[in-house]
């Protein structure tokens, strides 16, 4: 017989909190410990909390997760080759103004969020890759757990 397993649900506020925490890990990565990979793992936890409750969501095809991973990898590749005129992964956006290209004032300062150039974008693409990959891994565990014959 197929074992029916019930998992408890997570509060939507907790899920939003996890999502925001994961994105903040990536965005603030140049100012403090933390990186895109840890942010992606936290976002994957949030996705896990969503799909844990819903049987249909657990059995749905992982095309969204594969899309996450593919878009993240493509963004990483494009960003890597953007600065190919100088060298691979050259930071083309830094110091140019715009959203991520702010200029850091000289001297002792508190660090500013939007001055990292392509570093934040690299970290955000790594968030997509890690969330897709770890989410698919968790999905595989759940499928194996719910479809096994119960002894």
């Amino acid at each position, binding site marked *: 017989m197929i074992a029916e397993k019930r998992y408890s649900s997570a509060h939507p506020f907790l899920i939003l909190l996890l999502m925001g925490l994961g994105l903040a890990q990536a965005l603030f990565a140049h100012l403090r*410990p*933390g990186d895109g990979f840890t942010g992606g793992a936290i976002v994957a936890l949030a996705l896990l909390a969503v799909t844990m409750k819903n049987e249909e969501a657990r059995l749905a095809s992982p095309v969204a997760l594969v899309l996450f991973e593919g878009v993240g990898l493509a963004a990483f590749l494009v960003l890597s080759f953007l600065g190919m005129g100088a060298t691979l992964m050259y930071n083309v956006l830094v110091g140019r103004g715009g959203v991520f290209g702010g200029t850091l004032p000289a001297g002792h300062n*508190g*660090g500013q969020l939007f001055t990292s150039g392509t570093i934040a974008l690299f970290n955000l693409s790594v968030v997509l890759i890690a969330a897709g990959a*770890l989410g698919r*891994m968790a999905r595989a*565990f759940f499928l194996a757990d719910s479809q*096994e014959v119960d002894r």
Partner: protein
Amino acid sequence: MRDLTLVAVLVLFAAGLAGVVFSQDRRKRVMALFFLQSSAVFLFVSLGYRQGGRPPLFTLMAEGGPMALPSAQAMATSFLILSSVTVALLLALAFFLPRREGTIRGERKGRSR
């Protein structure tokens, strides 16, 4: 303070090593392995300790004063995520293999040890 954290690292390491060596249960072995990894993470973070230092957040840098080493803590966060992923994978193996083999012990059936 430094000595206390080193003692804690040693205790964690000894507990993990004892679990890996002496435990027969696969699940307990995996968790003991996590103890070993945690002791390494704790050692990294304690190496970055500075007397009276502030947490390594560069948004607080303007207030001055010494700061704990950020590189050790950055490595520790990555290391924690990686070790949690590997422990998840190993735990999944430890839980799914018994359904095939019929035993949670790491030995094969019908063979004396």
